[in-house]
């Protein structure tokens, strides 16, 4: 079932409309079924990111869950040496992650099918990959490189989840040191900005472009809202209620409308109950 259309002769790459080449992949040499990987050179109109050089990056769809980065790297090494493998849940642009985290503090990665961006050392490797015949499957787990799944894998993961308290402490300490440093730097920067806003001894204020200073407007959404509400309340206080006759009349009208609406709602509720035949006790 795997390669769906056998219209290409064997030893030929299978290219489907859209420009993707179909590669087949199976778990072991004795597996009966194959997954299909869809590969294409990475092409984006505007990505400045240097992590995925356009001419050397291969975009791969549908990588099974039992192929972590190391395995993928090995699999694609047959087309040329691989510089970097990036596996993602969904296709998308490269995201800058925050401060460097130890693996114990990273959120648990989702297991599942992935898309991959494989950066080769050499741009010719892309061509090699794209011309790989579809009836020669890539094999994930071989004797030289067994891939653990199932119980073996879970036991391994369980063992790897252990961490020495002193090592953990070390990680925490180094992170917090880093964090404090960053905080300090930020505070320094803010202080500088604030200084720049102040008058110098001759009474001049330096006006610059770019993000305005901290004082210019409320810094958070909540503060914005508060200011707005204050304004509304002020307005309300100034207003007189039931002062003119028409105002009084309007209030009464609103009241009746409210009652009517309620009445209609009640009626509908009854109709609903009736419609559900809720009145049949048995």
């Amino acid at each position, binding site marked *: 079932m*795997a390669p769906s259309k056998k219209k290409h002769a064997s030893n030929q790459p299978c290219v489907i409309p859209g420009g993707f080449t179909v590669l087949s992949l199976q778990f072991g040499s004795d597996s009966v079924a194959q997954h299909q990987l869809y590969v294409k050179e990475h092409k984006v109109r505007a990505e400045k990111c240097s992590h995925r050089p356009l001419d050397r990056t291969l975009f791969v769809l549908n990588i099974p*869950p039992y192929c972590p980065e190391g395995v993928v790297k090995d699999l694609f090494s047959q087309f040329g040496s691989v510089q970097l493998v990036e596996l993602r849940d969904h296709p998308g642009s490269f995201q800058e992650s925050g401060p460097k985290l130890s693996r114990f503090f990273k959120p648990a990665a*989702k297991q599942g099918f992935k898309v991959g961006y494989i950066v080769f050392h050499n741009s010719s490797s892309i061509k090699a990959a794209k011309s790989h015949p579809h009836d020669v499957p890539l094999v994930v787990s071989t004797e030289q490189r067994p891939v653990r799944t199932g119980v073996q894998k879970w036991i391994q993961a369980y063992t790897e*989840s252990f961490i020495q308290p002193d090592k953990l402490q070390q990680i925490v300490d180094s992170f917090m040191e880093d964090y404090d440093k960053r905080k300090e730097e930020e505070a320094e920067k803010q202080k500088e900005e604030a200084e720049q806003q102040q008058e110098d001894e001759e009474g001049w204020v330096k006006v610059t472009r770019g993000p305005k200073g901290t004082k210019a407007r409320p810094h958070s959404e909540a503060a914005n809202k508060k200011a707005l509400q204050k304004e509304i309340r002020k307005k309300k206080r100034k207003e007189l209620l039931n002062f003119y006759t028409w105002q009084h009349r309007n209030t009464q009208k609103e009241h009746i*409308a409210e009652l009517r609406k309620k009445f209609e709602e009640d009626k509908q509720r009854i109709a609903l109950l009736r*419609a559900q035949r809720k009145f049949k*006790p048995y």
Partner: protein
Amino acid sequence: MKKKQTVAEEPGEAPVKAKRSKPEEAEGEGVVYHPVKLSRSDLYRPPSADELNQLKEAESLFHCSLLKMQVRPLTFLTSAHVNNNNNKLSHIKVPFLLVPKTTKGKFHMAPPASIDLVGSYPLGTCIKPRITVDLAVTIPADVLHPKDVLNQRYPRKRALYLAGLAQHLASSSDIGTMRYSCLHGNRLRPVLLLTPPCKDSSSFTLRVHACPPPGFFKPSRFHPQRNNIRTDWYTGSQTPLSDHRNSFADGVALLKVWLRQRELDQGTGGFNGFLASMLLTYLLITHRISNTMTAYQLLRNSLNFLASTDLTVNGISLARDPDSTAPSLADFHNAFQVVFVDPSGHLNMCADMTACTYKQLQAEASLSMQFWDDPTVDGFHGLLMTPKPMIRTSDHVFQLCELVKLQSSCKKLNLLSELMDHSGNYVHTALPFILSLLQRGLGERIHLLTHSLSPEPESDAPKHKAQPPLSFGLLLNPELATSVLERGPSADSPKAAEFRQLWGSRSELRRFQDSAITEAVLWEGKSMCQKQLVPKQIITHLLQLHADIPESSVRYVGAMVDDVIKTGSEPSTGEEESLLVVQSYDDLSRKLWRLEDLPLSITAVQGAHPALRYTQVFPPRPLKMDYSFFDRDKPSRSLVPKEGKPCPAYITPITVICHMEGSGKWPHDRLAIRHIRAAFHIRLGELLKKHHNYTCRPGPTHLDVWKDGLVFRIQVAYHREPQVLRESVTAEGLQVVRDNEEAQALEMATIHKPLLTSTLHGLQQQHPCFGAACRLAKRWLGAQLFSDDITEDTADLLVASVFLQPAPFTPPGSPQVGFLRFLHLLSSFDWRNNPLVVNLNNQLTAADYTEIKNDFMASRESLPVMFIATPKEKKLSIWTKKAPSVQILQRVVMLAAESLKVLEQQLMDGGQIQDVVMRPPLDAYDVLIHLNVKQVPLLSQAVDPPTVTFGRGVMAGSVTQAGGALPVIDYNPVALYLAELRESFGDLALFFCDPYGGTVIAVLWKPKAFIPTPFKTSQMTARSVEVTGEQVNAIPNVEAILEDFRIMGQGLVKSVEARTEKWSF
């Protein structure tokens, strides 16, 4: 047709035409409430005076008009033609037990003197279903003889007369079927049942009563103190009902519905429809109600009267000026248990009623009044719409199976004269005596003892033998019912003899701690599940001792479903284990509080695990590990599962949340907070190790503590962390607060779950069987593969609502009845249109209820399908946000209804109990993944006890309290495998598994997944392509997926059974 008519008559005919057509078109299943939209012109029209009045009253009338509209469809004035009835009975039998065979007298047949339509039909008070039309046929005077009152001669003649009538009617072609029955189950009063042959009117039956001519017998002959045999009330009572207004009829109909829902109106000695109308008549005569009252008020007043009047002590009489020969009320009280005298003053209409039945009626009435007055309860629904079968009402039920044995009881109880009164009906004779015996024996342990009313048999000729078993229901008093000691009077008191007489050889002299020496009976029972059955021991003992009824013919339905949550070699349903866990946790909590040298102090220690609120299906047991079974990770002093060995015993980490004091020292950054928390885990671990020698393993998210053979997982929490997670800074430097899943999950774990745990822990203290009911419910959900859709917390809340809003029942007093009501709640609640409000700690007021309901109605579409509101969380239903989905909920509802039906039937009818409801139907699924039992750690919890057992690294012996290597914690291959499957194939299929020792994973393809979709880079997971010209379609690569099931579960999966015949792509 009837329906349309009433819609048109609806009371609220406001001039507003806005949505008139809507109710009609919305009939049927899928009706949904839509917010009302009125146009501006409709809303702001000038109001008329009439309309103003109507609007103002609308709110107060809502309840009333609802009831009024309800009454209409109920009361059914049949338009069938009465004169078109007659029938056939192939061989005519005399509907009477001729014991003794002969008696004096002559009998000949003659046409009836008159035929009258009597009873509820001509009065318009009869109700659906099973409408009966009563015909009184007057026996001509020359057939009878004045001396026929003696020795049952009259009843015999009456039976013969009926037989004669039947023979005559048998030749007529207008009658469909013809059977005999007896009025109110009394065999002395046979009646003839006729049904018309046409199918459409088969819903009603014609009941022919034979009665003597008016004034033929002198009423004084039937004085209860004379040695005569009482006659039928039908002889005298033509009631002064005839010219009452319609609301009276409605009131009677409502009362009848109320009685019917409580199974009080059918059978011998019930409070039947006739008595209901008589009661209302009595109230009318005594001016407790008036003709101008609405049906609603009539029902209320009559229930109030029933609740406050004890007819077993103060009887009432309809006779206004009884003649001098009539017996006094005191005479009646001497002869009967319940007294309600008819207008003639000679007849007790409640003659057959036992005191227990009346007490039940009274209890029901006062219960109904109670929740009628409660604004938070939907009184109408509980009052008239919910059936209360005995098995769902009573905490324990037991049945007397072989009723023939009652013959010997009559002998033993010395009831020969009473037996004569009942013409040899030993069941009715022995019943009152058995009831009073049990009442005495059970005493304070029960609130109420009820019994089923034996149905009126319908057959060609009556027999005694083929009677269904007699059922008794017990409403337990939870505090006293389980006590194993029955302490009697002191040895020298005069009451001691009475006590010894009651208990026989079980009564012993015992010396107590307060140095009193008293008579006492000690029942067996160590664990809670044995103590639950103390009432059973009492009942079987008393019946055997005093009534000669062997234990074998008593079928006790008290804890029959509890087997599925029993574990271990000793019989226990987990109460003791739960208590042990809670005690160990309390100890840990104390020790945490006392820790010093922490940078910040601890502000709260809260449990957040079902085991800490007694609702864990199989509570964790203290374990002792066999080190040789495991590999070891030396540096962290931990055991590691060994490859090739069976999966080690599963150890649940019991979550404990430890809140740290807020302080300026906490950073205002999500990552930094996480690191600080980790530092706290390390510090706490160090201190616990130092002071108490507990083996600990700190990690970034939690700290595992090995204590008393249990594992506690301590999570440090900082109360501002969710807030920090919600804050973010936009590109312009504006700080915004946005809700997100991460923050919600954290709040759930650190705020909502601990709160729920402590609240439900409190509920357990009030209702001792709450925990067990929860566990049964969750075991059922697990067995039906719904554990992942209806989470533990949701299930606990559902059961809590059964205990907190029991109306129209009382709070469950046994796990079994709690479980049945849980199933009933699941299956009958209208999840589409109503929020389920769980009023924990009674914090919600009536105003809150309205608010919740209005909010719910306003945004129904965006809310979870199963909506549960609690006092702390009224608007979002966080517990059911993710699951269940509509389809799953539908299936749950269906299976719950089915299980309830099967289970109740099994419980009441005998036969082999349970398991059927605990076995999921697997034929609906597309793929079954069979697991290797060796790697299923919870195998011993399976519904079907496993045939093979594996060593799982656990040793017998006493558990070490502290120290030792850390065991394998929270390692369950099945759960890991399921998580992996769901993450990989979640968009293609659903995966179901019983978490309690299930050995099969059931897979259901999502129907949408198999529709070919155009090639899209974001949706290519596990799909293959099909190329047709330029069109590329993607379809799931099923073969590879099935192979993946095997690969991903290597070592765990035994086989993958693909039921290809079910698939249709």
